């Protein structure tokens, strides 16, 4: 009879995931401040400039503004605070 082995599972311990709700959505973006957050990935600035131009041409009633954190992939509390206090919505890009 073939021997059966008991072996350990090699993975670590995943943290518990707690559900979080999304922010309420806006009825319309007209007259609202929409921050275009440039994540600073190479060439993301050029993408955001094009997005800003698109809003200017297609939805001029939207107050779209480009904003940048101080560093890539590092939380910038000052920028985050500005988006939270002055912004009605945010579009982040491009990257993870």
């Amino acid at each position, binding site marked *: 009879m073939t021997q059966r082995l008991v072996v350990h599972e*090699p993975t670590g311990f995943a943290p518990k995931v707690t559900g979080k709700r999304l922010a309420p959505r806006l009825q319309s973006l007209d007259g609202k401040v929409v921050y275009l957050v440039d994540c600073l990935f190479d060439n993301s600035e050029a993408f955001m400039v094009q997005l800003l131009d698109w809003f200017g041409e297609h939805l001029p009633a939207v107050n779209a503004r480009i904003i940048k954190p101080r560093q890539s992939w590092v939380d910038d509390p000052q920028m985050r605070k500005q988006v939270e206090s002055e912004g009605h919505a945010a579009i982040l890009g491009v990257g993870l």
Partner: protein
Amino acid sequence: MGLALSLERAGVPTVAVHTDTFARLARATALASGMPTARQAFVPQPIVGRTAAQLRGYIEGVDPVAKRPFMQEVLAALTRPLDEKDAKGVSFERPAARLLPPDTEENLQQLFIERKWTDFLPVTLPTEERVARMVQGTSRKPDEVVGRLAPTAFREAWEFTVEKVAVNAVMAGCRPEYLPVVLALAASGQTARSSSTTSFAVLSLVNGPIRNEIGMDSGIGALGPYNHANATIGRAYNLLSQNLQGGSVPGDTFMGSLGNWMNYSACFPEAEERSPWQPFHVEKGFGRHESVASVFFGGRYMLAGFGPRETWREEFRRAFAGAEQHLAPLFVMDPICARGFVELGFDTREKLARWFSENGQMSAREYWDNQWVQTLLRPLAVAGVEPHATKYKANPEDKIRLFEPGEISIAVAGGETQGAWRMFGGRYVKSVSIDKWR
């Protein structure tokens, strides 16, 4: 994703834009954050190198994941009312089993491959007996928490114990006496399996008495598959990194475009007894009789040469020209090579690192035309952080330094069969005590 989730929690409706290559990763990150329906929109890969017109084409085109107009997705993401799932998110736990159901060796080997717990080379199955023997290699308790690891800064970090590290050490083929080194590497907090698109590896250097106690070899073939301890400790560091951080799975928890052979194993001891310089760990503030592991992030580029010969200055200037400007080097020099530099007056590593720093240059134009320099260093330069700000002000054809002396690491290893040197992309991360894990 982290910023998007943070803004949502603060009441700001947010949509994160990614390239389609990252769709699985973005969704997995949102799920692990408890917001699986976090709004995301996608454009084609790549962004880098695309012109303004091409980027406008992405914006006016179709989201390649949703198959609907990109801007329609973006606008809907900010205005479409929430449903029940959006309002609650998802809560769940992922308990890790300690033991797997009994099975045959053949089936278990296959199971480990299917679950992506191996590096696709055969592993030693971590039976209860083998793991029990392995944990005898440390005085620490099996259930003691060693640390946490994540594939990258924006992913969730998973926790692990001494026993879990021992399981991976068994799989890699380690002997119990190697465990303190493996535990120290695990406790460093530096994953050897970064998920970065840039396919990084981590090189690890061992200093101090434990090198000889466990039979590591700093001689012939120190960087190759010629010593049991060198090979299996390096392999264990990689296996534990992938398994204890929640995976290193292509498209999910690993996005390296090319991959990296150094992700199999890249650990070596310093040839302290034959080095003309102080041991590496002593220069980092540890005592000569302490055992220490140092980790270097990179493993992307590798240049090599002999020396120092008559034209060594030109050779090393050329080597720096071939290095990647965002990733400081780790030099590994054979003792013959290191002694040659001492004969030239470089009686400390610091002096040699200073020469490398002063002479490792490239034009500002070339320096700033690099994806990672643009992404990581340009924002600092624009914010006025030195030395980046000064480099950013340089004229395009001005030569600028690639690295500061303190960023350039030099270690000594090799069998003295020739005066060889290697230059690896290897940014020094930290040095950690091995003795505390004995």
